């Protein structure tokens, strides 16, 4: 099935999705005839928290806010930004105080954490009565738990790789790397330390933990079962850590400052020509285009395949309703507005973020842009990202520091793998226990 979709041409896929979209629209317009099946119109003030900080994102928000004003004139929307670093602190504070925003952005990796801490409202009923739900339904399960829906999908970050076409040509690489072994070979081939040029701008600083999860998944397959049982084997973890660490330590094919390189540094290295490849997701599409020319200098490339699965995830982002809001009607109206094809298209054009709505995904912007072929191909093959309670802490406070220790020589890949597996088992056990408690607490509610 995966191969089947993967082999479908872009156009065919769009025909399918267009048909699906039309059917969905037909279905919803029919159902909206029944007044009881449509959400109550919201009024009054509505505050929304997002963690977007970039200028293009802000501009896109400004544009959608204007559109929202026209669509829902009775609601006064206040868009507020809370940076990712401070997000959980503010979210926890507002949840504890039972007072905060009305609508919130939900990053899928944080979804279960946010749910457990208790600030997300069950929007199943709202969603059922929302005519547009069908066109974005594909990603809703990612934001559902225990058959309750908590988020309206907004767009999906599709992991991909950027590479310097000119560097690849100079190094004599004819075929784009598709496996992790080929990726490594390409990185080594593009490395020339005497010229200060390396194959890959690896992220080993802030935000680098996600790549460790990528590697573990690529070598192990699923690392956590839906019932919160850790399924990561030590052998696979060792293999994964060896591959990722050795790319830097043994092959020396990555920019040497790796242990402290966060987003800003890896892209600065890539733009400066210090690295031939950099891994990220569609979120940087517009910025890369500002610095390098697509087609001649830079190309997008699907993430390589590991022994068990592809190295990378698709990670949807949604908007939900804050548990303690006094204005859930308006909050849902805003969240669902952002889920609509029109709003998603605005974000797509402003930022390159891949829409979850099939109608928005069939926009000319994607159809006419060859670089997005990578995303479309990946959409079918890339695994869905994880979300389990404790994921972010394990990723950022265990996986990343252990990886950094390997880079600076105070830890071995084997030692790191052991700690990572052990810690994941602890996290899984805690999640399972908390899960049973959660079920018993919420029974009958």
């Amino acid at each position: 099935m995966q191969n089947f979709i993967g082999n479908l041409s872009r156009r065919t896929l769009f025909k399918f999705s267009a048909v699906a979209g039309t059917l969905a629209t037909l279905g919803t317009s029919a159902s909206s005839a029944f007044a009881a099946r449509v959400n109550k119109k919201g009024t009054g003030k509505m505050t929304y928290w997002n963690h977007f900080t970039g200028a293009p994102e802000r501009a896109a928000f400004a544009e959608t806010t204007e559109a929202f004003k026209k669509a829902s004139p009775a609601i006064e929307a206040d868009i507020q930004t809370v940076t990712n670093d401070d997000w959980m602190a503010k979210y926890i504070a507002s949840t504890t105080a039972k007072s905060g925003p009305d609508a919130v952005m939900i990053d899928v990796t944080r979804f279960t954490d946010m749910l457990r801490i208790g600030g997300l409202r069950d929007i199943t009923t709202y969603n059922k009565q929302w005519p547009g739900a069908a066109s974005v339904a594909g990603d809703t399960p990612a934001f559902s738990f225990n058959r309750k829906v908590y988020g309206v999908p907004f767009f999906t970050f599709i992991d991909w790789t950027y590479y310097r076409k000119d560097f690849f040509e100079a190094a004599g690489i004819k075929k784009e790397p598709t496996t992790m072994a080929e990726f490594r070979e390409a990185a080594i081939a593009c490395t020339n330390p005497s010229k200060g040029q390396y194959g890959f701008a690896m992220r080993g600083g802030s935000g680098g933990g996600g790549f460790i999860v990528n590697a573990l998944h690529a070598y192990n397959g699923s690392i956590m079962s839906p019932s919160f049982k850790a399924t990561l084997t030590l052998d696979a973890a060792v293999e994964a850590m060896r591959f990722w660490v050795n790319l830097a330590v043994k092959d020396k094919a990555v920019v040497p400052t790796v242990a402290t390189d966060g987003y800003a540094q890896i892209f600065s290295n890539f733009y400066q020509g210090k690295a031939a490849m950099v891994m990220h997701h569609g979120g940087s599409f517009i910025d890369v285009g500002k610095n390098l020319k697509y087609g001649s200098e830079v190309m997008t490339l699907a993430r390589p395949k590991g022994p068990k699965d592809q190295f990378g995830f698709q990670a949807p982002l949604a908007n939900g309703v804050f548990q303690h809001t006094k204005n859930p009607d308006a909050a849902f109206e805003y969240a669902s507005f952002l889920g609509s094809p029109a709003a998603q298209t605005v974000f797509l054009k402003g930022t390159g973020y891949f829409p979850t709505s099939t109608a928005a995904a069939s926009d000319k912007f994607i159809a006419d842009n060859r670089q997005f072929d990578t995303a479309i191909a990946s959409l079918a093959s890339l695994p869905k990202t994880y979300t389990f309670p404790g994921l972010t802490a394990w990723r950022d406070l265990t996986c990343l520091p252990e990886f950094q220790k390997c880079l600076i020589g105070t830890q071995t890949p084997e030692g790191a793998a052991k700690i990572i597996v052990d810690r994941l088992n602890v996290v899984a056990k805690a999640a399972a226990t908390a899960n049973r408690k959660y079920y018993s607490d919420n029974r009958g509610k």
Partner: protein
Amino acid sequence: MSAKTLAGSPLRGFKSILEGKYFAWILLAPSMILVVAFIFYPLYRGVYLSLTRTVLLEGPDSTFIGLENFRQMFRDSLFLLAAKNTLIFMVVGLITQLAVGLGAAMLLSQDRKYIGLIRVLVVLPWFTPPVVTAYMWRFILDQNSGVLIKMLEGVGISFGPAGLWSNPELAIYAVLFVDLWASYPFFMLFLLAAIQGIPKDMRESTAVDGANSWQHFRYVVLPLISPVIVVSSILGVIHLINSPTLVLLMTNGGPGDSTTVLPLLAFQIAFQSYDFGYSSAISVAVLAAIAGFAMVYIRFAKFGKED
């Protein structure tokens, strides 16, 4: 209204309160109320949480577990490492800042043209917003485009291709260097004032007695300014331990755990692992440690005030 009209008015009772022994307390009341409301309730709650298991992923409830969180600290290798780093940060930070501050105070106590202006310039880093300090220095010490790194390379000092910030031994000292830039003027200010408080003719009289500059400093200046050294050291230690802004913004504890300090660890455990019980316990432990220093401060302050 003037005091004279008050004297003969029915407000006499009120006035007598103002004049009496409660006068001080009335003036103190507003600030005391504010402090109690904003500091003591959080403090009480923090101490309470430190005695409970409160992990938000398990639900919002707290279970009383006595001193278990404190016991856990001694089994937690990351805590012990962070404690060690905190100690390094404190000791090295204090010694360097005090030494440079003292040297600067000696230099700036001299009479020169524009010395007033220069004193103000030198103090500017202390008032530079920590956020700006952190980003500014990260840029100056950046391995790729940092001007200071390139200058050091020019004179043969290189941190290797991985750079200063990837070096687990040096990263903490890099932060300490930046903290030195930002914080030594604080010591300088205090010590400069103390030095200026020493009568000028004292140097002349010791010179007549045949003392050289070092002897004058060692036997005359140092004893006179030592109470100020003690006071400023304690305040400096509080700042070094309680303000992890620079560590947070410059290394965030990395590479590995090599620059993790206790306040940063407490922050991560609370807002990333959502374990508020353990996090509070760490904070309370830090608080107890600094309070210990404060006790020393009181002792020395009293000792120095016998004038």
